């Protein structure tokens, strides 16, 4: 009895996930795989909320090409192998026309071959430069790269007349990848990395590492990480009374960082997308309208502070929708061609100008330099 119930349960569940035949005049299926749980859930969660929110809004406004959008989201838990399985499932079982997703560089890289082979446009939401360099025919990305963040920070440090930098990064994906990029571009900016300290994700105390940075004669500290790490590093820096300029990365992309770090966050600088300072943008700034709208929509419906991660998903979805409209088709190659022809798209991350050789389309101007003052972001330039 028990056994039979188990068997029928499993069988029906398998049937559920098996592909159902598609009939004509169906909604346009857009796929996504995100790290909604696991170590990168901090990123994946707002991405998922954003996609669901805006697909709903687009459908309420009549859909795309007169058809509704249907969103299929899978949670890869941050595991690249799972990401690849879900990518296969999106292509083979769900028959999606395009994919917006891939929270981390690792999950994106694992999934890319599947989409390339199936000729399905894929807009990644991860930072790693290797996603679009070298350019792959069907792969795009919306976030700024780590390399850009390093360059922006180093430029600012140089401007202050400093040169010796203590680097402290997480060993997890985001931090490790940014560390590599920073080490690579430092010499070109006349920056000397005098300390290169690391900590593991989940570490709750970084004073030993910061002590070493203190002893190294660094003139500024750069921290590459997202989530809880930057808040802890920021608090520890103040705790140790280290009176050095502290730079965070664009991984610190939400107001919650200021809440977590508390008063210690005063004076911290970071490169970030315009969204964090939506209200402070000058009225003539082309991004102002877009970011304000997104911010208000997100915060009023989700009851949590907006983050640039959700913004990446917004940009990805909008880029795709506009491309489908321009292409007037759901054919993979046509959408790809339309995506590639994107010019002057205004997103939360910046103004996007794609080309056959640039599948990200952002430049350094997309990053703003912010400083935390009085418990809020202050736009420097």
């Amino acid at each position, binding site marked *: 009895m*028990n*056994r039979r119930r188990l068997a029928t349960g*499993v069988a029906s*569940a*398998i049937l*559920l*996930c*098996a*592909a159902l035949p598609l009939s004509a005049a169906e909604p346009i299926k857009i796929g996504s795989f995100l790290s909604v*749980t696991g170590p990168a859930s901090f990123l994946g969660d707002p991405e998922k909320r954003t996609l669901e929110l805006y697909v709903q809004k687009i459908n309420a406004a009549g859909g795309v090409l007169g058809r509704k959008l249907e969103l299929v989201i*899978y*949670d890869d838990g*941050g*595991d*690249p*192998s*799972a990401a*690849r*399985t879900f990518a*296969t*499932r999106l*292509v*083979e*079982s769900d028959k999606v026309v395009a994919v917006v997703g891939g929270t*981390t*560089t*690792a999950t994106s*890289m*694992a999934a890319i*071959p599947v989409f390339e082979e199936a000729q399905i446009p894929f807009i990644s939401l991860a930072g*790693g430069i*290797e996603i679009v360099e070298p350019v792959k025919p069907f792969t795009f990305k919306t976030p700024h790269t780590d390399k850009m963040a390093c360059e922006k920070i180093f430029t600012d440090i140089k401007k202050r007349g400093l040169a010796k930098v203590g680097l402290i990064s997480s*060993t*997890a*994906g985001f931090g*490790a*990848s940014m*560390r*590599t990029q920073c080490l690579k571009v430092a010499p070109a900016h006349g920056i000397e990395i005098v300390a290169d300290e*690391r900590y593991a994700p989940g570490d709750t105390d970084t004073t030993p590492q910061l002590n070493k940075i203190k002893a190294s004669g660094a003139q500024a500290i750069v921290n590459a990480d997202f989530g809880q790490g930057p808040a802890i590093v920021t608090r520890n820096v103040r705790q140790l009374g280290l009176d050095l300029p502290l730079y965070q990365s664009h991984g610190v992309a939400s107001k919650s960082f200021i809440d977590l770090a508390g008063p210690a966050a005063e004076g911290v600088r970071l490169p970030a997308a315009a969204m964090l300072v939506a209200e402070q943008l000058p009225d003539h700034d082309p991004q102002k309208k877009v970011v304000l709208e997104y911010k208000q929509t997100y915060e009023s419906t989700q009851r949590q502070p907006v983050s640039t991660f959700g913004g990446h998903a917004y940009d990805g979805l909008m880029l795709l929708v506009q491309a489908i409209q321009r292409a007037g088709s759901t054919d993979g190659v046509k959408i790809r061609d339309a995506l590639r022809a994107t010019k002057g798209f205004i997103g939360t991350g910046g103004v996007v100008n794609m080309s056959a050789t640039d599948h990200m389309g952002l430049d350094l101007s997309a990053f703003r330099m912010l400083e935390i003052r009085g418990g809020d972001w202050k736009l420097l330039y």
Partner: protein
Amino acid sequence: MTPATRSKIALLGTLAVLLLVVPLLFPSAFHLRVAALVWINAIAALGLALLMGLAGQVSLGHAGFLAIGAYATALGPRHLGLDPLLSMLAGVFAAGILAFLVGRPILRLKGHYLAVATLGLGILVHLVVVSEVAITGGPDGIQVPRLVLFGWRVVGPEIWYAITGVVLLLATWIALNLEDSSTGRALRALHDSEIAAAVAGIDVARHKLLVFVVAAVYAALAGGLLALLNRFVTPDVASFLRSIELVTMVVIGGMGSIAGAIVGAALLTVLPQLLTFFHDYEHAVLGLAIVLFMVFLRQGIVPGLAGLFARGRRA
């Protein structure tokens, strides 16, 4: 024919039929990929089942060996210009050597102490692949070149389904042979009483080491296949959670049961795909399912169901 031989033929036969039938029932590339992942996980779980189920030695760091196989397959071509297949075999060999070297001191420990020592071993491997970015690519992972055999590009889900299926069949056959041999009996004996086994002339330390090496080799083989299938490796293969997942496969399927390891691997690989239906509740349901399975079939699925079946027949 002895009972052991009979059950050996029954299991291998069932597995062979399954290998042939699955592609007919589920021909999509997605289903074949999931099936290939089941076969790969089953290979790793089989090795662990020999270590845990047969010999009663726990390993909470088995993903470390999985990672050695996977990374060897990626690193050989990248840094040494080796053929991926050759690199994979080298990785399997390296995992065996590592197991041999660290096995002797570690396996002197018993029970939970053995668990924490193997846990440490797994974490060390994970740390190395995460930290040595210049060699391993770090957390963002590393690409694995496509396998080319005699000028034939090994590509496509059907092909990988077949390859992994055949390797699993061989791995199962070997595991069954080991179980029903002098060495296998010695392992089962030391599981129950190390003292009685030693007094019966069994070199306990040597046999533990041997099965540890075999389990490491199985895991590394599975890791290599995973790398070739995904054509991409990240440190997640070495993570603590992956080790726990492997142990759960063995226990949920039924410790000491070769068939159980395969069933457990199938369950834990397919379940997450089925649970996407529950959206946000996926993890809660997965956790609940594990608890319920263990509470109601505490010996594991295969021995548990066999017991229910036998009782039903007697009644």
